[in-house]
């Protein structure tokens, strides 16, 4: 029973290797078997150990935890693991037709799952570093998988910027190792207890945070995300936006948990960073014309909203708002990307202006897309509403924080009003599609969106022990609120975005080159240093 974490890591890895070696159509179905086995194992693990996280500490080789590598699970990591396996199920079902012919794709996909599950469970800083680098390399290959020019360019951009960010993470590990003589997260947390406030430790915290921020695509390090998520295949985009970006946020939570005895006041800094990220993401999303680019920039802005929640201390409800938004965003953003993939494949175009009449050609897909849009804009009864409302309640007393969220909501509404015009209009041509597996995966995700939006009280109190009964989606006030947001968004769209004023065009053509991105990274490090050490 205690070896289940190891099996969860190695079942997908070995499946991937078999798929690569045998190159057989029938062997490919092994992936589904492995997925089923992992689901069962994880449920068994949760029922056995979910309540006592101390028992989940597992050291390879039974060595002392300070020198060996250990795995550790609490409710948070187990919930992320459920999310991981769920997302992989959806992507596997979605790429069902494609999978039969392409074992290479399936190899990288399954290997990435094992690596990501290992990343979530690891309790060792250097092990985290190895998994981060492995994730970077596999994602680079998956981005460049289409073998077009811009895919290669996005791949190399992604790889270099992430590797240099993760090297900062390694620098942090070096300082911590030389301070504590161990790189075990729990041991360092124990060692920080009663430790005096040293510049070296603050430096280590900063370096680790830079690694997490690059992975989570916070401002000003988000520049790789729209490029990478825009060019990848739709299934991969859903995976990257839905899950892999959250790896950075997970790292953020774990590092802050590790440094919690040191009591650094990080809340305000990261709230502002999250707010700027959200604003910038929405601003760029409004100006884009390419469906996948719009969705990718919305990932940036939603990561900003999550960061606004997660930047608060884990005892606040605001923190759970951010955490809840991580899961909700994983669902609705993968739904939107998967739907966009089906539409793009049918219309052979990525431009919003070229796509019309989706409602007539693909009624099921468009209803599912609308569910995703209602969720992301925060309509009552859908899951986006819940997390946005928790965050709204959490920052109610500070007006400037409230306004940031308000403007981001308006921007999101405007952007999706703009995107919703693809549904209307005449039926362009007869489009024959074999998309049964795609539709199946999208229906499951849409269903869970509605589920999380209505059954949030038992889920959150049963799992995290947080009481959310003060949020009521059935009243008239949330509805008025939502309709008001939509109206303002619609006016804004008609007045500014549709006319394509010079400002919008300027933002659309604004590109951050690679050297500037690194320049901004150094600037970000210095900003952190200024906030945490000099001030």
């Amino acid at each position: 029973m205690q070896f289940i974490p190891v099996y969860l890591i190695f079942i997908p890895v070995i499946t991937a290797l078999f798929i690569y070696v045998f190159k057989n159509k029938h062997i490919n179905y092994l992936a589904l078997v492995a997925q089923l086995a992992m689901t069962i194992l994880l449920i068994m693990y949760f029922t056995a150990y979910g309540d006592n996280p101390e028992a989940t500490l597992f050291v390879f080789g039974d060595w002392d935890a300070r020198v060996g590598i250990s795995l550790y699970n609490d409710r948070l990591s187990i919930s992320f693991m459920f999310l991981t396996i769920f997302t992989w199920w959806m992507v596997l079902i979605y790429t069902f037709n494609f999978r039969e012919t392409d074992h290479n794709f399936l190899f990288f996909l399954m290997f990435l799952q094992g690596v990501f599950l290992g990343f979530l469970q690891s309790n060792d800083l250097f092990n985290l570093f190895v998994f981060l680098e492995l994730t970077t390399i596999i994602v680079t290959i998956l981005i460049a998988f289409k073998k077009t020019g811009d895919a290669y360019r996005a791949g190399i951009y992604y790889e270099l910027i992430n590797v240099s960010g993760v090297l900062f993470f390694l620098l942090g590990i070096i300082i911590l190792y030389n301070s504590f003589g161990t790189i075990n997260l729990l041991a360092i947390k124990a060692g920080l207890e009663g430790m005096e406030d040293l510049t070296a430790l603050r430096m280590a915290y900063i370096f680790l945070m830079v690694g997490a921020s690059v992975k989570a695509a916070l401002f000003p390090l988000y520049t790789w995300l729209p490029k990478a998520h825009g060019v990848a295949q739709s299934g991969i985009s859903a995976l990257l936006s839905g899950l892999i970006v959250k790896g950075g946020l997970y790292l953020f939570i774990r590092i802050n948990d590790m440094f919690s005895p040191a009591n650094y006041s990080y809340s305000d800094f990261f709230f502002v960073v999250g707010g700027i990220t959200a604003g910038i993401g929405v601003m760029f999303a409004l100006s884009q014309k390419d469906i996948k680019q719009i969705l990718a920039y919305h990932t940036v802005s939603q990561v900003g909203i999550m960061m606004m929640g997660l930047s608060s201390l884990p005892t606040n409800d605001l923190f759970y708002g951010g955490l809840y938004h991580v899961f909700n965003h994983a669902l609705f953003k993968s739904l939107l990307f998967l739907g966009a993939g089906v539409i793009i494949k049918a219309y052979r175009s990525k431009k919003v202006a070229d796509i019309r009449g989706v409602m007539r050609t693909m009624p099921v897909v468009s209803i599912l897309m609308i569910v995703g849009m209602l969720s992301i804009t925060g309509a009552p009864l859908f899951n986006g509403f819940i997390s946005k409302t928790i965050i709204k309640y959490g920052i109610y007393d500070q007006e400037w924080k409230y306004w940031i969220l308000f403007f981001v909501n308006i921007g999101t509404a405007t952007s999706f009003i703009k995107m919703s015009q693809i549904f209307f209009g005449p039926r362009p041509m007869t489009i024959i599609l074999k998309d049964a597996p795609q539709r199946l995966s999208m229906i499951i995700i849409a269903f869970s969106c509605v589920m999380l939006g209505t059954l949030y009280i038992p889920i959150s109190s049963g799992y995290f022990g947080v009481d959310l009964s003060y949020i009521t989606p059935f009243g008239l006030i949330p509805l008025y609120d939502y309709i008001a947001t939509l109206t303002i968004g619609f006016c804004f769209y008609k007045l500014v975005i549709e006319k394509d004023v010079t400002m919008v065009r300027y933002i659309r053509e604004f590109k951050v080159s690679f050297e500037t991105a690194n320049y901004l990274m150094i600037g970000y490090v210095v900003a952190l240093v200024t906030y945490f050490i000099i001030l």
Partner: protein
Amino acid sequence: MDPILTFVVILIGFYGLSTSTNIIKSVFCVTIIESGVILLFLNLGNLDGGTIPIVGEGVTMIADPLPQALMITTIVIGSTVTALALMLCIKVFHHYGTVEWAEILRREEGK
């Protein structure tokens, strides 16, 4: 060697990364940063000067073995990252006919 000197190597890498406009140079800068990090860790692992971490008769003072083991992993990771980046670089060259970041962007818009 002073650990601060190795940190200067890392900073040189970052200087190059934020000023060079060529993909190959960017790849090399990442390699430089990586070498700097490796040197820094090995340096700090042996501040009071011991011999290689091999136990035997008459060996009293040895260097800390853990940084050395970790750095082997980092070197292997670094070499694979470089190899992948260079292969992507070749492919970018085949597609755009150039390895300048700005020029690639210009040619992409020109299409």
